[in-house]
């Protein structure tokens, strides 16, 4: 299925979870927050939230700022 992750198109297996997506990218799920179609995905549901074709995903973290 086709996703948009941080503005970039990305293909992944059908039924992949948020946790699965983060792991496949190589990200530590504890260090990021995820928004799916503009709704926050609580960290506690990363493992159970299955992604769907066409989902728009934002993955953010903390960077230096003032």
């Amino acid at each position: 299925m086709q996703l948009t992750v941080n503005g970039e198109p990305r293909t992944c297996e059908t039924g992949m979870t948020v946790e699965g997506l983060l792991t496949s990218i190589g990200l530590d799920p504890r260090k990021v927050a995820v928004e799916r179609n503009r709704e926050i995905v609580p960290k506690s549901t990363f493992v159970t939230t299955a992604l769907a074709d066409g989902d728009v995903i934002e993955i953010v973290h903390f960077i230096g700022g003032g």
Partner: protein
Amino acid sequence: MTETTVAATGADTFTVAGQTFSSRLLVGTGKYKDFEETARAIEISGAEIVTVAVRRVNVSDPSQPMLVDYVSPKKYTYLPNTAGCYTADDAVRTLRLAREAGGWDLVKLEVLGDQKTLYPNMPETLKAAEALIRDGFKVMVYCSDDPIQAKMLEDMGCVAIMPLGSLIGSGHGILNPVTIRLIKEQSSVPVLVDAGLGTASDAAAAMELGCDGVLMNTAIAGAKDPLAMALAMKLAVEAGRLAYLAGRMPKKMYADPSSPLAGLI
């Protein structure tokens, strides 16, 4: 002089949203050469609260070092900001993500007006503050140095009022000490000068006005020697605070000799 003064006890703490801190210097984590320098400068500044921004992860290079690996959220209180947000909706969205990423509800709200001045857009700031407070956030708010709008933000439930001294990153210091003083006098929540400070005397001036603290980033990160400036700022904030508590002498028109006139030969 009793032994209960700050000079004797060193006890002078600062409380925001029920959390008590001993440092009145809050620092940003941006613009440093690298994360090592960021971590070192913050350590030297003695700051306990650090502001951080929320941005997209670079998914094409996830192995890049992360701020949290150098500036531990266990050691410092992270204050997520909304830098780069120009609408209330963007600011609220950003802080909801920040809360999910870190689990904290103490945040720095800033809604900007334009890219040239980064001056706060106050109508959007008020709108965002209202939405965030309704959603359970504890909002420290970057705002204009307008006492009336500062009061609106306080009445709404913001936990700290943070007027700009001058434009973000400009280093002009406090351009209108009178309005900063007016805001401090009317507020029952902490008032911190956020933005515009350039050097140690600017930080001391903010504290001498009676402000509860200062928040800065570029003044330290943009100095030729950021580590030395971090220490200068720590000392300036402490000195300014002590001077405020001590109560300065009144200004006089004419000279007043320090040596007694009696017994002159």
